[in-house]
């Protein structure tokens, strides 16, 4: 930071501090909605990470003396038909589900952005081919494809880990491509050509960082979709196999006792809802900020 040293002691405040403050102000300046959403997600992630410390019981710890007992201080979410503590099971399930959701959301994202960026940048035949492939991927019934993959690789989370990214990149590619078609005509992209930069540099260094923003905002919604997909598959018995817990499989277990012990299915379900609300608020808040403070 020789530039700072040259500046000397008197005069304006040190540059790095000023820049840092500006950055911090930027975060504080986020819409309240985004902050609440981020808070909810952070809370869920923290709880999931600390599951072994927080959970009062093991996830598969049976207790036949306390079958289907209602929520109480000793069993926050009550117990299920074999006396397992639903709260503990939910924490462990959340751990598994969040890990999978993050993987199946953020592995396809950079792949999709890159493909979409190239299609939009090059245009012509490359773009036509990619756009048609994207259309096909998106038109294909997502759920059926994932189930088909599971049919091949067998039940368990492996099917989701393989099946979802096969399709999900197309969503990001479509978004990145449409943004790129607009950005390509922006003077700063024209400038990368006029400055003699390689196309590789123009796409990777100049276009992609700008495309990441809308894609990251979209990914908050995608995470919700993926969590619901995961819960649905687990509910159908295609997710993590018993006795390991997933949010969907806990709900499925509780379904048969819903009328007598509502808590078994309802409370883990509400955790899914909480995640959805948090991610939705974060995404909404970020896109508001984008419109307000926006990049042209």
């Amino acid at each position, binding site marked *: 930071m*020789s*530039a*700072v040293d*040259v*500046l000397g002691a008197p005069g*304006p405040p040190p*540059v790095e501090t*000023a*820049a840092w403050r500006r950055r911090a102000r930027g975060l504080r300046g986020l819409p309240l909605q985004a902050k609440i959403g981020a808070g909810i997600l952070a809370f869920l992630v923290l709880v999931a990470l600390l599951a072994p410390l927080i959970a009062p019981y093991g996830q598969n710890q049976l207790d036949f003396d306390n079958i289907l007992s209602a929520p109480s201080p000793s069993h926050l979410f009550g117990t299920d038909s074999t006396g397992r503590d639903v709260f503990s099971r939910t924490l462990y399930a959340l751990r598994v589900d969040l890990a999978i959701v993050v993987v199946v959301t953020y592995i396809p994202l950079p792949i999709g952005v890159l493909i979409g960026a190239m299609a939009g940048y090059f*245009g012509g035949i490359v773009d036509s081919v990619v756009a048609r492939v994207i259309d096909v991927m998106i038109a294909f019934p997502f759920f059926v494809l994932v189930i088909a993959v599971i049919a091949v690789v067998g039940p368990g989370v492996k099917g989701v880990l393989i099946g979802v990214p096969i399709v999900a990149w197309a969503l990001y590619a479509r978004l990145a491509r449409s943004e790129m078609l607009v950005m390509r*005509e*922006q*003077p*700063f992209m*024209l*400038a990368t*050509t*006029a*400055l*003699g*930069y*390689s196309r590789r*540099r123009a796409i990777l*260094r*100049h276009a992609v*960082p*700008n495309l990441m923003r809308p894609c990251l905002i979209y990914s908050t919604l995608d995470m919700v979709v993926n969590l619901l997909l995961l819960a649905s598959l687990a509910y159908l018995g295609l997710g993590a196999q018993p006795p390991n817990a997933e949010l969907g499989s806990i709900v499925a277990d509780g379904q048969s006792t819903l009328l007598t012990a509502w808590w078994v299915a309802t409370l883990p379900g509400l955790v899914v809802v909480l995640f959805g609300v948090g991610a939705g608020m974060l995404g909404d808040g970020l896109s508001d900020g984008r419109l307000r403070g926006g*990049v*042209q």
Partner: protein
Amino acid sequence: MTALLRIEGLRVEFGDGDAPLVAVDGAGLSVAPGEVVGLIGESGSGKSLTCRSVMRLVPRPGRIAAGEIEFDGRDVLAMSAQELRDFRAHDAGMIYQDPFSSLNPVYRIRDQIAETLRVNLGVGKADARAQAVELLDGVGIRDPERRALSYPHELSGGMRQRVMIALATASRPRLLLADEPTTALDVTTQAQILALLLRLRAERAMAVLLVSHDFGVIAQVCDRVVVMYAGHVVETGPLAALYTNAQHPYTRALLESVPELESAGRRTRRPGIAGVPPELTEVLPGCVFKPRCRHAQPGCEAISMALEPVSEGHETACPVRPFAGTGSAPTARAGAQR
């Protein structure tokens, strides 16, 4: 003097081969080393396309259909991809009308300038950053050490245009293509940017091709002027010759439509040019300006639009010469240039 840039018979077309729309039709001009040439015309006259053609940056689906573009004896249109990149990186720089989107919003301005130094000149990382600050200082950014760490959205339009100029001239090109660089700026900032261009030209012997629709801007900085109308060059000549002795009716009409300080308060209407420029789909035989020309005569629809010499370096596409011998200054501004 041999020209640094020579454009001849440039033709830019849009659309399919059978019935293309011709946006630039046979335009030609030349820029000598260290010279500032103004390219003036209305919207849609093809001036920006001509300027962009030099970098082979005609926006799709447009294409350069014919013509020659020669930079320092090298044929720009025949360059391979690698030669073209090299040409863009080292020999010519370009700045644009819209300083609000011509810098990448996600990088600090120092890093954007340092990037071009590193990529195009092979300067090391720390050196590039230090040089970037120097370049910012060189384009008149105050407190460059601090400003260098700003993001583009933190700067005013005038400052962004200065940064853009620093970026485009970082690798010391011999030619700067300035496509309406001051149009989006207020008049004070405009004057500062033009002064900066003149200073850079003087310091580095850098030639400038300045595209503008504003005779005021052209008059402040240019050595020579090229007037375009509907894709054709209609008149070209030294600034003084064009101001005092314009031979083409379009140039005269343009000059007469410029308001001047002396007319302030006097309720005289500036004469406009009747009508509108032709659409790209209209193909006019002969002189393209004839429908709007006050001096049109029978036979104008049969002329070739070729430039004919008037005097040393002064050429016009109008063979009728309605002003031949008058020689008087068409506006009071002519006396007030520079």
